[in-house]
């Protein structure tokens, strides 16, 4: 029941924001902040309560199920294990910071904005815990539509195009997934005579290799678009660069993770054999994505587009690691999901802060900002180093474990992937140099971080360092999930 609360609080909070904004926009902001804080508190308490269980037992921590549309075998079935728990923590953590990020940025239709923001987050939380495939698809759509509005209404100058592109890409993938879900549903029904969308029932279905391949393809494409895998990544730079700051933060920090989560939770378990068959190809696409995304990041002049391409590169590591079928690599992947969420989220938040001050995203027009804003420069340095995977920071642990896990499986592809680390150094340092170093450009020096901004960046920074120094608690938390 506590899981339903997590989603419910967001949905209700969203409505509340919308309603309150009719009288007072300030109240609406606080409502959004408080509902996320409450949500984070709930997830946090769950993590605290089940901290020991998750380490030692391979059971689902919380499992809640009621019938929804029993005629079709659809139930409202939510459950979490270590993996879901970790990702839910990330969701509420970043969600809270996303609200803080948009505190002053959003001046129009504030209530509706926070409604969309909270509903997207509700959809994401739902995706991370739904154990009924129909419900999963339902949440998948719930996170999509409000996101579309976030980009299309509060985005930058080219927002319409970006929003359409985002919607069409993910929707096309979503439809394929729906077809695949239905196919699985019917195959199961003909075999067992039971019509059900329940994940645990469908795990037992035995598929002919040919069928399995096609059904898996449906799932995989939907998740690959979301992740994104090159060449399905095209929506991402547009959507990320046009979205409002909090939108980019949630897109990069959370939405992309749903793709990775989908692959780990559904593709690997429902179709183990078919997934093993395509492993080499998937890893190849991962390695290509790493290098390709990094090279493109290097060529960008738009700060947000640059960060967007680094996401493509970092998510290549996820694909590479997942299909290595190694415990170490998978641990690294989960770590990568967290650290990328934090690191890239922080970079987008920073890009938003810079845009508020300079009214541009063009890094050619920036330079020498360290003199005026040493605090932000220091934070930027930290996250630049995180994006190139410097040891002592979380992203190093992630990439280290992924590459360590894939090396014995595919030494050649791993070596290609490590080239990505050189490119990562190139684009990260180029970004740092263009924005913060060099001669001062522009007439009036911008203000340094405000206390609110400092809280956002410092929280993210501290979590990044903690993950880098003490990764073991997280590794323990997902150990049992990964082990299976």
């Amino acid at each position: 029941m506590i899981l339903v609360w997590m989603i419910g609080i967001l949905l209700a909070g969203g409505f509340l924001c919308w309603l309150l904004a009719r009288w007072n926009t300030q109240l609406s902001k606080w409502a959004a902040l408080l509902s996320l804080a409450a949500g984070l508190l709930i997830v946090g308490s769950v993590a605290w309560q089940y901290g020991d269980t998750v380490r030692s037992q391979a059971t689902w921590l919380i499992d809640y199920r009621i019938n929804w549309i029993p005629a079709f075998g659809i139930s409202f079935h939510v459950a979490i294990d270590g993996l879901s728990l970790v990702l839910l923590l990330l969701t509420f953590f970043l969600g809270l910071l996303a609200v803080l990020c948009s505190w002053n940025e959003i001046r129009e239709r504030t209530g509706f904005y926070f409604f969309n923001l909270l509903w997207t987050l509700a959809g994401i939380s739902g995706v991370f815990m739904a154990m009924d495939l129909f419900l999963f698809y339902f949440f998948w759509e719930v996170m999509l539509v409000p996101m579309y509005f976030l980009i299309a209404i509060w985005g930058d100058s080219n927002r319409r195009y970006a929003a359409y592109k985002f919607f069409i890409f993910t929707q096309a993938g979503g439809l394929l997934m729906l077809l695949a879900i239905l196919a699985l549903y019917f195959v199961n029904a003909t075999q067992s005579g039971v019509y059900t969308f329940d994940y645990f029932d469908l795990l037992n279905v035995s598929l002919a290799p040919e069928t399995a391949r096609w059904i898996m393809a449906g799932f995989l494409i939907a998740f690959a678009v979301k992740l994104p895998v090159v060449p399905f990544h095209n929506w991402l730079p547009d959507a990320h660069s046009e979205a409002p700051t909090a939108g980019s933060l949630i897109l990069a920090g959370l939405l992309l993770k749903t793709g990775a989560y989908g692959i780990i939770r559904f593709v690997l378990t429902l179709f183990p054999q078919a997934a093993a068959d395509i492993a080499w190809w998937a890893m190849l696409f991962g390695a290509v994505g790493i290098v390709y995304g990094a090279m493109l990041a290097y060529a960008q002049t738009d700060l947000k587009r640059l960060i967007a391409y680094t996401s493509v590169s970092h998510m290549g590591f996820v694909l590479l690691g997942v299909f290595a079928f190694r415990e170490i690599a998978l641990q690294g992947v989960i770590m990568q999901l967290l650290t990328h969420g934090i690191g890239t989220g922080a970079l987008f938040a920073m890009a938003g802060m810079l845009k508020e001050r300079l009214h541009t995203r063009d890094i050619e027009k920036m330079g020498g900002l360290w003199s005026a804003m040493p605090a932000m420069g220091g934070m930027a340095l930290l996250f630049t180093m995180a994006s190139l995977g410097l040891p002592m920071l979380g992203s190093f642990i992630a990439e280290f474990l992924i590459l360590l896990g894939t090396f014995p499986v595919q030494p050649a592809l791993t070596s290609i992937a490590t080239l990505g680390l050189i490119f990562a150094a190139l684009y990260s340092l180029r970004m740092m140099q263009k924005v913060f170093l060099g001669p001062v450009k522009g007439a009036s020096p911008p203000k340094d971080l405000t206390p609110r901004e400092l809280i956002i960046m410092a929280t993210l920074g501290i979590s990044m360092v903690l993950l880098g120094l003490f990764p073991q608690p997280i590794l323990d938390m997902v150990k049992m999930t990964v082990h299976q």
Partner: protein
Amino acid sequence: MIGFLINGLLRKQLSKSLTSILGSGVILGSFVVSLLIFFQVKQGHTAVVNLFDFISVGKLSIPFSFQVDQLSSIFLLIITGVGFLIHVYSAAYMHEEEGQHYARYFAYLNLFVFSMLLLVLGSNYVIMFIGWEGVGLCSYLLIGYWFKNIDYTNAAKKAFVMNRIGDLGFLLAIFWIIGKFGTVSYGNLFEQVAANAKTLEGSAAIVGITLLLFIGATGKSAQIPLYTWLPDAMAGPTPVSALIHAATMVTAGIYMIARSNILYTLAPFTNTIVAIIGLATALFAATIAIKQNDIKKVLAYSTVSQLGYMFLGLGVGAYTGAVFHVMTHAFFKALLFLGAGSVIHAMHHEQDIRRMGGLKKYLPITHLTFLLGCIAIAGIPPFSGFFSKDEILAAAYAANPVYWVIGVITAGMTAFYMFRLYATTFLGQFRGAEHLHGHHPHESPAAMTIPLIVLAILSVIGGWVGIPEVLMKDAHSLEHFLDPIFAASSKFAHPHHLSHSTEYGLMGASVLLAVILIFFAIGRYSKRPELGEPTGFGKVLANKWYVDELYNAIIVKPLNWIGKFLNNFVERDVIDWTVNGVGKVISYSSRQVRLLQSGQVGSYVLLMVLGILAFFVIQFFVKK
């Protein structure tokens, strides 16, 4: 107990010191601790201190732990000792900086010392790697310390990226080691290797691992082909050049190979590569140094060249010799750099030696200490450089006389360019009056000269811990001290012994050559320094054999071009065009069914949901 002390100090160093006193104080503290550790280790106590489990996944466990033994204690002393002197020196050298940047400088410097200690104290390769990248970061930060100058930040970027290329070799080596042996802890790993020495010797795995590790070392220790970042790194403040780019960080590669000596002993092929690369770098960098006119550039190429010597030593199995040279080099090169800093300070940031000359009169302490440093690096007995260089050269002769010949030629060139530098800077007429608007340069304050004096004394006597067997029996105390580290591998080594007369001959030859070239250089450059632009072959040398231009043309430019190509063509023209094309086709066809569609996404979604429901309703009836 020791571990606890170190740890406490390391934590302190992380904190941003607001004053130079705090900054230097913590280093002094850790120097004292290092001394205590040294005496503990000397009595035979070594220890591995386990702090916490860093990563443990499945069967693999990587602890966050430190190891104190003979090798690490030597490096500890060098890092904290020289580090402390340089912190004191910096306090005076950097006094013109604003408060905020001054604090930033000391924070970076302390972070550097912390990372470097992590590097040498780690008890496994992963911790070493963490320190390894950490010092790379600090080097990047300090080279680009004056961040408003775009050239300096470019130099910083170059240093980081070239180091990164090497680091990947290191990283892959770690993966391979874990894959093959299942552990990265030195103790466990080396035991396994020693136990299976017979089967491992010369095997692909061991050769591969050692080669990859060596790639890491070429990046950090500036060897061919990854050396070009080091001369550019001179963009940083001079004390930084002394500490990071001469005395400590660049010797990390030597530490790594010395630490892995047993792996290298079992991979003769890699050893040959190491020796050849080292020798080639030594010679190549020395040729460039002859024609440089920037006082720091000469020293930078000299550093590259001396590092090449150390790799030669490692390659021919003279591990003690290499570590010995690390130590003496740390003394005299730090001295020379700090001396150069003192000159630059006196000359108001002028670095071109063609505008100096005759400084002997104005900077007596700097002059004398610099001269001692030059003699030490030239390898004149009984100065420190002689003993360590001689040990490496003798081992090189034993392995292959050709190595020795090239090594001695390089040593001669070293003596020549160092005294060219000395004579042009300190002797002859003063030529900098114009730059200083008629003022005379003044000697630096005590905070700068005292470190110079201390380092000068060390440069003179530092070699006496390693007096070779032929000159004095049982006087090579460094070798006895380090014996436990290299004992395991010496069982598998194939040592060559030289007769005493050969050894005397070799020593005599190299010293004689050095002395002749020193007098030649002084005679030539004190009276008629090279003031014009070099011509002919000299120009090729002055332009560093055009290696930077070559790298630029074959690597940097194509990379930029590919990036632009991917962005402008593949992304924009191919993928976007396809996507938008598909979109156009759809919108065209949708216009044909416009009656059904309003063009608003909201209603699409509605329709879709209705469609899904309809689907289910149909299914429901079919089922019945």
